[in-house]
């Protein structure tokens, strides 16, 4: 059977499974729709949280990023797992005790203010849509490469599936579909990793293979990789290129951002008790760690394999995956020295970095480019980092069912995260904006109807992002984490641990953190991208890490404004006392 046919079968089976689960778990009340009836088992919630959390970025892009960044890539590994410690110890149990439906709900009640609630809804919608745009790109890539359908058709099919189970089942449908999606995605991630680990090092467990010697030699994989990367003019794989302060701040922004992401927090509202919320965070991190400790091993294997399989190869005999991805437009080759062979080294191969192709073919059959070659280095290839995980099984010459499996896994990762995000958007619109602010008189049944309508509209908007992807998707991801760290984390944390914090303090803090972080990122990413380098950054902190400073500003403003204004009413003190009890 061809890879394409197998992919259709795998993707078809998994999609049928998701629809089946959706039919079985329909939501009947707002309680079902927003928080799955609050009776999800901690292990199931752990899996659902893991699938919710691990997006197309974790599944498709992260190992690729780390493969090219080497040790600098650790910021993602530590940042996206360490946040769960903060979530488990500082937020999840208390927010579960609070026992309402959404994150703006907590902020609105705790700070006894509709303004605070509306501000939280705005931040939530912004963060969540930023994130969804990335998921849709993931769906598009998988569909166009493996099913050879148009990206737009792919996006529409993906949207239709999410529409079906999110609108019908709400949180309940999403939770149980995410459990299934976790199983699909982790299986799809581990199988090729184990295969490649055995091929390269003879070790079954990738985490061990990562630190072992290569097959038929006495040389450790990482030592060889350090040597090869240095020879090609890169910094050694296991050494940092970024400054320590920048690495520190990016890691912190990702950690605190993770703990403040509404679609993750809301997962802990679905379990039956405070104890279950704590346990559930632990299970979630185990399930996440399974992928996150495998990813850096995959990165090292992929980088090694990639260099081995293309360096100094004549283009005419280059492997088929190389040409396939070139057709999609995610690989480009420019024969600078006209020897017909592929040379890979450090530096951007092309002027303007991203390739734009001509209709014509070159003497070796390669796609010719509009771009001028970048003559300051000898690198001849452009590789989009997003393809590494998808191409890895092909690069390692694994059987075609493994490739099909990876495609199904990538879709599971993208769809599960998109569904979780759509749910928090729709529930904050129907619950926080309509029921709690503008239309307090609606009945539960009407609220449920509005929640479904909001979910449908949100899916439509997400679909438009997928079909007309904003050119800046990758760049705005920094936004989502930076803003979550600079707005939600301090407001939630202080709301629980500092009773005296009043609405004036919380609102000023959130606004200050939001404005500072947003302007810094917009300035360096959009207004003045030419000076986006460490000479101009504040204290040498990149826009990716600035959320950490935004958070400190939020804390400082919130605490100082609070001291000089009226303390919160007595009910708030009682409420905080109440949520501090198990």
């Amino acid at each position, binding site marked *: 059977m061809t890879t394409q046919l197998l992919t259709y079968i795998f993707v078809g089976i998994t999609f049928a499974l998701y629809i089946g689960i959706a039919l079985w778990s329909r939501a009947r009340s707002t309680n079902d729709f927003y928080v799955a009836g609050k009776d999800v088992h901690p292990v199931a919630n752990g899996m659902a949280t893991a699938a919710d959390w691990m997006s197309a970025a974790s599944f498709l892009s992260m190992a690729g990023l*780390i493969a090219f960044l080497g*040790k600098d*890539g*650790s910021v993602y*590994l*530590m940042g996206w*797992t*360490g946040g*769960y*410690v*903060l979530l*488990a*110890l*500082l937020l999840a*149990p208390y927010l579960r005790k609070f026992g309402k439906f959404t994150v703006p709900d907590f902020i609105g009640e705790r700070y006894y203010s509709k303004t605070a609630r509306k501000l939280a809804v705005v931040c939530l919608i912004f963060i969540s849509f930023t994130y969804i745009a990335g998921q849709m790109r993931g769906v598009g890539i998988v569909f166009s490469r493996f099913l050879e359908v148009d990206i737009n058709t792919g996006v529409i099919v993906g949207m239709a599936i999410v529409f079906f189970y999110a609108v019908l089942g709400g949180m309940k449908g999403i939770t149980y579909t995410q459990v299934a999606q976790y199983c699909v995605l982790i299986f799809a991630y581990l199988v090729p990793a184990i295969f490649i680990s055995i091929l390269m090092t003879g070790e079954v467990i990738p*985490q061990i293979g*990562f*630190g*072992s*010697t290569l097959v038929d030699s006495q040389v*450790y*994989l*990482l*030592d060889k990789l350090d040597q090869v990367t240095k020879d090609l003019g890169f910094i050694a794989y*296991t050494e*940092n290129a970024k400054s*320590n302060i920048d*690495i*520190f701040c990016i*890691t*912190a922004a990702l*950690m605190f951002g993770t703990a403040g992401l509404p679609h993750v927090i809301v997962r802990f509202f679905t379990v039956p008790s405070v*104890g279950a919320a*704590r*346990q559930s*965070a*632990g299970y979630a*991190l*185990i399930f996440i*760690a399974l992928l*996150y*400790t495998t990813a*850096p091993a995959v990165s090292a294997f992929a980088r090694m394999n990639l260099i081995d399989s293309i360096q100094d190869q004549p283009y005419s005999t280059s492997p088929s995956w190389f040409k396939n991805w070139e057709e999609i437009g995610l690989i480009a080759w420019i024969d600078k020295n006209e020897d017909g062979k592929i040379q890979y080294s450090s530096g951007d191969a092309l002027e303007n970095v991203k390739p734009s192709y001509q209709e014509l073919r070159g003497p070796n059959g390669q796609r010719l480019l509009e771009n001028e070659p970048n003559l300051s280095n000898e690198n001849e290839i452009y590789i989009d980092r997003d393809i590494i995980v998808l191409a890895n099984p092909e690069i390692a010459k694994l059987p075609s069912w493994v490739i099909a499996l990876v495609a199904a896994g990538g879709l599971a990762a993208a769809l599960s995260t998109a569904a979780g995000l759509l749910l928090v958007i729709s529930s904050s619109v129907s619950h926080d904006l309509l029921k709690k602010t503008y239309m307090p008189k609606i009945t539960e049944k009407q609220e449920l109807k509005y929640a479904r309508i909001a979910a449908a509209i949100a899916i439509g908007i997400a679909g438009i992002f997928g079909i007309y992807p904003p050119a800046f998707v990758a760049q705005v991801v920094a936004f989502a984490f930076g803003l979550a760290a600079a707005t939600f984390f301090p407001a939630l944390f202080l709301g629980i641990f500092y009773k005296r914090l009043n609405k004036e303090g919380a609102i000023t803090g959130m606004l200050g953190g939001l404005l500072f972080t947003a302007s810094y990122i917009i300035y360096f990413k959009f207004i003045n991208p030419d000076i986006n380098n460490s000479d101009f950054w504040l204290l040498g902190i990149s826009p990716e890490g600035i959320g950490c400073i935004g958070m400190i500003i939020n804390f400082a403003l919130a605490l100082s404004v609070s001291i000089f204004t009226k303390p919160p009413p007595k009910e708030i003190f009682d409420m905080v*006392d109440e949520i*501090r*009890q*198990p």
Partner: protein
Amino acid sequence: MKDKTHQYWKANLKIVFSLLVIWFIASFGFGIIFSDTLDQIRFGGFKLGFWFAQQGSIYIFVIIIFLYVWLMKRLDKKLSEEEEI
């Protein structure tokens, strides 16, 4: 009664604070600040600082959360027993 809940909260803060110290040392300490120094030590094919940054810190995070679950369960039990008396 008021006193009991106050003590419970204080014990809770102590647990959270000590676990966060471990969290900080494992990630920001071993994985970033002292990473290059730890790289002098080898551990199989890994340099130790690199291992903490890409593997070890994550294992420690998992252990921290389960320690927390266990310690809090013990504390909750103590509180409910005292309330019964």
